[in-house]
């Protein structure tokens, strides 16, 4: 059991019209890991997530989830397997109130299977579960916030909503694409416990981040990318000491 990593990526390559976005990237993720992916802008982090979660077709390489080959699957199938993801550019369902945003993942086949929505068949039930999840993720239940239109929420809440959407699926793995970016220090301070809570619930997290300091608080393994190539992988502190990584980051981030 322990020999089998929950997610195993082998030799993923992707080019955009001559531009190499990813070159032969391979890594394994164990269950319960908080796995950080770092690298300067344009190093292919988001592309990597897109490839793994099926939003982009890879040219070569293989993605295995719990031993099962899921390469080239459609995104919704991959999500259905238990791999959730957030988006770097958040776009909640603007025309819906915050709690109604969660109806969509709760309606998905996976949520119905895993009991994210506990039967009953009554219309109101999903709403109740949705508000519960929002409360877990830091929306004040009795305030107006969960009932506001998603488009009127501040960025911090929108990020939380994005996480809540993942949580509603009861996933095994969550890819977080820059959840800390664009947030104030105090907002980040509010987010970190959420990540830790997820970790404690046994969810495997893969975090793409620029905010290294915050990332290193939670991550137990880190991989560095540059120009689509994997530079190194290992314990956070080892990675940051790596010469290549420092070169890649030089001047761009305050390490």
């Amino acid at each position, binding site marked *: 059991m322990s020999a089998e990593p929950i997610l195993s990526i082998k030799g993923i390559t992707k080019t955009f019209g001559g531009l190499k976005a990813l070159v032969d990237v391979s890594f394994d993720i164990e269950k319960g890991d908080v796995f950080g992916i770092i690298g300067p802008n344009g190093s292919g982090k988001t592309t990597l997530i897109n490839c793994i979660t099926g939003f982009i077709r890879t040219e070569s390489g293989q993605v295995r989830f719990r031993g099962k080959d899921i390469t080239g699957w459609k995104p919704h199938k991959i999500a259905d397997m238990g791999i959730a993801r957030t*988006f770097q550019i958040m776009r909640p*369902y603007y025309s819906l109130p915050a709690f109604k945003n969660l109806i969509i993942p709760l309606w998905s086949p996976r949520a119905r299977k895993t009991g994210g929505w506990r039967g009953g068949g009554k219309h109101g039930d999903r709403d109740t579960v949705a508000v519960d999840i929002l409360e877990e993720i830091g929306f004040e239940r009795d305030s107006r916030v969960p009932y506001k239109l998603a488009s009127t929420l501040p960025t911090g809440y929108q990020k939380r909503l994005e996480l809540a959407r993942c949580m509603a699926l009861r996933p095994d793995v969550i890819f977080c694409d820059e959840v800390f970016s664009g947030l104030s220090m105090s907002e980040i301070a509010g987010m970190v416990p959420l990540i830790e809570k997820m970790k404690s619930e046994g969810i495997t997290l893969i975090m793409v981040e620029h905010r290294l300091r915050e990332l290193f608080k939670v991550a137990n393994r880190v991989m560095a990318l540059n120009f689509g190539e994997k530079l190194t992988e290992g314990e956070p502190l080892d990675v940051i000491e790596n010469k290549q990584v420092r070169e890649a980051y030089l001047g761009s981030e305050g390490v």
Partner: protein
Amino acid sequence: MRKERIDRGLKVRTEGIYAINSAREILYLMGPRLLLIAGLLALPFVFEFAPYWKRVINIMCAYALLAIAFDFLANYVGLVCLGGAFFTGIGGYFAAIYNVNLGLPIYLSIPLATVSGALLCTFFLLPCLPLRGVYFAIVTLMYPLLFTRIIEALDIFGGTNGITGLDSFPNPYLEHYAIIIIALVFLFGMRRFVNQDVGLVLRGVKDNDQSVKASGINVTRMRIIAVFVASFIGCFAGAYIAHLYMWAGISLFALDFSIIPIASVVIGGGGTLVGAAIGAFILVPLSEILRAFGTFRIVIYCIVLTGFIVFKSEGIMIYLQRKYHQFERWVKV
């Protein structure tokens, strides 16, 4: 001086949640709806002495249905369908084939044509559903043209002469009420539907299909459901028109069936469904009144349409809603 908008007492601004205390407040909420229902149902009697306008009611309701279908697809699912005529054409031809060639009575041919037409439309639109952007719009614009040409070139289904001799409705009141009641049912049914969980997912698809995919839902399947629902409505309108005029032909694929519903939605107010219907209730009679001007009415019509798009893009419905729920006053700053 500046204009201030204040909500009337009842409405709590949390989208759709009301606290109702009295019969008066219930009336406040239900009033407009009841007015619409009662008004529509009374129309055939109101126009008892203007039989021609009774005929306009039928066409008006048919256009309202098409407008609802367009509004639903465009503003709730994010698929802009420029080919409402595709639905009417398919629905109408099915009705004609069932009624004339297979000899089914009218009360079977219309429902059957609606269902089979919707299935066929959905089937033909399948290929462009996984795509984003303007492709759905272009394909739907092209399909009615293509079908016209195919029927013309292959000389099938009566060729350019069309199929005539469909049964008409057994009595004029049935004719009016069939369409009025169905229009009301679809109108309120669709309003309910878009707030159901399925409807919410569809609205999610419109806002952000990537995120819906990441939530483990097959977006293409959702779009298929939506297209089926819309083409169901459209095909019913088509089958009804075919029976109303006892005829089906290639001009059921005519551009007017695509353009007028869109114009109705623009004028009535997109994203409300009721607005779409109201737009049709305004535009179709307006176009009848302007009939005396010949082709000039198209000019007037287009200018009104452009005016609405440019200067009042919210449409009449949303404007009325605002006036109903809020009042305005000038305050000193």
